């Protein structure tokens, strides 16, 4: 039964991915990306990776869809028709994909008890057996993320922070000159703010 559910979900993923590639309407493609993340989150739940599924659903299908829509509003909703399809690019992509699939053949099967991650005494065995007495929380994922690998998580937080700073420095901070500020900041609101925001933020 579980195999069937996973198979259906993964088939959905492939179909949605093809749809994203084929669609010329970028708005539709963005929405499909959100659906893709949601289906992927479902697949993660079936694989018992609830924390990952949680993140995928919240970030992948929630926030990033909104941000993609925001980015789309800078450009048009239609993808430009391409002049020609490059044969060299197709060959390159097929070779790269083939090599990647060949690489996965060496990986342990899903849920295999003999995989190195399961049997290595310093990894899963240690976390499962010792984290309750060493760190405490019943959710081992929290123990691993926060305590055993706290340094990694500090790095991840810094990456999020750096991304925020980068977007702010490109898009966000107000220009110094006041006349630019009036133009740039909240068009419609500074000029027509008294009209109660009704006209604000037309596309």
């Amino acid at each position, binding site marked *: 039964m579980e195999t069937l559910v996973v198979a259906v979900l993964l088939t959905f993923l492939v179909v949605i991915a093809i749809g994203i590639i084929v669609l010329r309407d970028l708005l539709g493609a963005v929405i499909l990306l959100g659906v893709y993340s949601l289906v992927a989150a479902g697949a993660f739940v079936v694989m018992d990776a609830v924390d990952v599924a949680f993140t995928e659903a919240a970030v992948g299908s929630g926030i990033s869809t909104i941000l993609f829509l925001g980015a789309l509003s800078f450009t048009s909703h239609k993808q430009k028709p391409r002049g020609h399809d490059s044969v060299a690019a197709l060959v390159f992509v097929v070779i790269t994909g083939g090599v990647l699939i060949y690489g996965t053949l060496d990986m342990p099967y899903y849920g295999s008890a003999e995989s190195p991650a399961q049997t290595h005494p310093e990894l899963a065995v240690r976390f499962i057996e010792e984290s309750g007495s060493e760190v405490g929380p019943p959710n081992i994922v929290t123990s691993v993320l926060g305590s055993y690998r706290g340094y990694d998580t*500090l790095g991840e937080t810094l990456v999020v922070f750096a991304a925020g700073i980068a*977007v702010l420095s490109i898009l966000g901070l107000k220009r110094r000159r006041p006349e630019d500020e009036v133009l740039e900041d909240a068009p419609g609101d500074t000029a027509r703010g008294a009209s109660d925001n009704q006209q604000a933020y037309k596309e």
Partner: protein
Amino acid sequence: MKLYPRQRHRVLQVVTKLLVPFVLMVGLYVQFHGDYGPGGGFQAGVIFGSAFILYGLIFGLQRTREILAPRVLHVMMSLGVLLYAGTGAVTMLLGGNLLDYDALAHDPLHGQHWGLFAIELGVGVTVSAVMISLFYNFASKR
């Protein structure tokens, strides 16, 4: 980005007003219950931020900015990282390694608990502030 003006979409507005407190509550739950169930600072920050993003989509950017000013977000972004890194610094000052929470209390388990609480809070604050800030910046340019 197209943000809905106030007079239209009454249903969306009512539903949003009903929904936002619950979304914030779920965010806080995920933040502080991450030790026991799925979740943690990152997911909580995203959920918390999405409440403000939802509000901004329906009620307009200006009103959202009045509730949560961009300047506050900039402080929050830095504060979360500071809280995380500061926890590491405190553990070093108390004689442990970087982010070795055992040093935070006499009982190592209590120390771990406090340490995890602090760093998850730091992650949550930074992530939510960055997410809302990204939305502000993308939405304010047309």
